């Protein structure tokens, strides 16, 4: 099997994404005395292109899905699908990241479990933590959050649906009602709570 370079992978996936393609970049990072490089491909694509791009990636090598990461950027929620290809070949693995931005007005994304069943854990987690609807997910139950967790509160969001201040328990303050007479300094104050921030 002849291996594609990261740039070639980016080009191939760009073609597969078609009109949904937004941007692509390749990065490298070297560590150690020999300075062998680890390679990454970062693609930003629209939701509609996710499945065709992934299908093209499967043709290169059946990828290992690592996790779906997230970022709340204000008006959008970005999902980062991290895949590895060329694993099993020493020092040649390439990390392919498909970033899919979703508008907060329409937080729906197709499931990829039809192609890679191992993505189920991560998709279930995204549903409960970010309020995203994964269309056609085979198992939509909650995963990590308790059964009595309020609906419509999504811990990883930084807007009004994030964790409200009254849900936060300050463990360090319990039993320290007389804090003003206490020599113990309180723990470093957390940066201004991200809830309710308008960006």
């Amino acid at each position: 099997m002849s291996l594609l370079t990261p740039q070639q992978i980016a080009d191939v996936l760009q073609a597969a994404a078609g009109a949904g393609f937004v941007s692509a970049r390749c990065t490298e990072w070297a560590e150690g005395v020999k300075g062998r490089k680890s390679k990454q491909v970062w693609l930003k694509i629209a939701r509609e292109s996710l499945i065709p791009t992934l299908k093209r990636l499967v043709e290169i090598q059946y990828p290992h899905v690592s996790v779906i990461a997230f970022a709340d950027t204000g008006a959008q929620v970005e999902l980062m699908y991290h895949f590895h290809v060329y694993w099993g070949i020493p020092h040649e693995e390439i990390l392919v990241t498909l970033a899919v931005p979703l508008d907060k007005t329409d937080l729906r994304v197709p499931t990829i479990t039809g192609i890679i069943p191992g993505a189920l854990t991560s998709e279930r987690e995204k549903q409960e933590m970010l309020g995203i609807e994964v269309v056609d997910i085979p198992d939509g139950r909650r995963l990590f959050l308790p059964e009595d967790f309020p609906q419509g509160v999504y811990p990883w969001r930084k807007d009004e649906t994030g964790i409200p201040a009254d849900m936060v328990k300050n463990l360090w303050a319990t039993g320290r009602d007389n804090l003003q007479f206490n020599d113990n300094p309180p723990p470093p104050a957390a940066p201004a709570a991200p809830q309710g921030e308008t960006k």
Partner: protein
Amino acid sequence: MKLSQTLGKSLWAFLFNSGSCNGCEIESVACVTPRYDLERFGIKVVGSPRHADLLLISGPVTRKMAPRLRRVYEQMPEPRIVVCVGTCGTSGGAFYDSYTLVGPVDQVVPVDMYVPGCPPRPEAIIDGVVKVLARLEASEKNA
């Protein structure tokens, strides 16, 4: 080591992890392995709270585990000793604020002894258990 009359001949312990990182848990288990060998004192780790005199709790108590912790505590026969192992169960530690924690441990069940450390060494856990026993003996003598 002599145990107090109330507890009979040997002390049986139940380990409960209320959502800790596992560090305290592993150090508690290390106490019963050959290097520290708690069993020479007759202290044994059991698998059911109904057989236990001593409850070793680690972790800052997550929402899902809080009712289970209360239930385990209630299932234990009296008299029961509760030792809170680790800083996060004592005051939150690194997890000092969160939306899914209801701890520290003493907000959920009463605690007799705190063993600080992240995680405490096995020697410290043994020391904590021995100290709480000594206190129990002293209180029985005074009564």
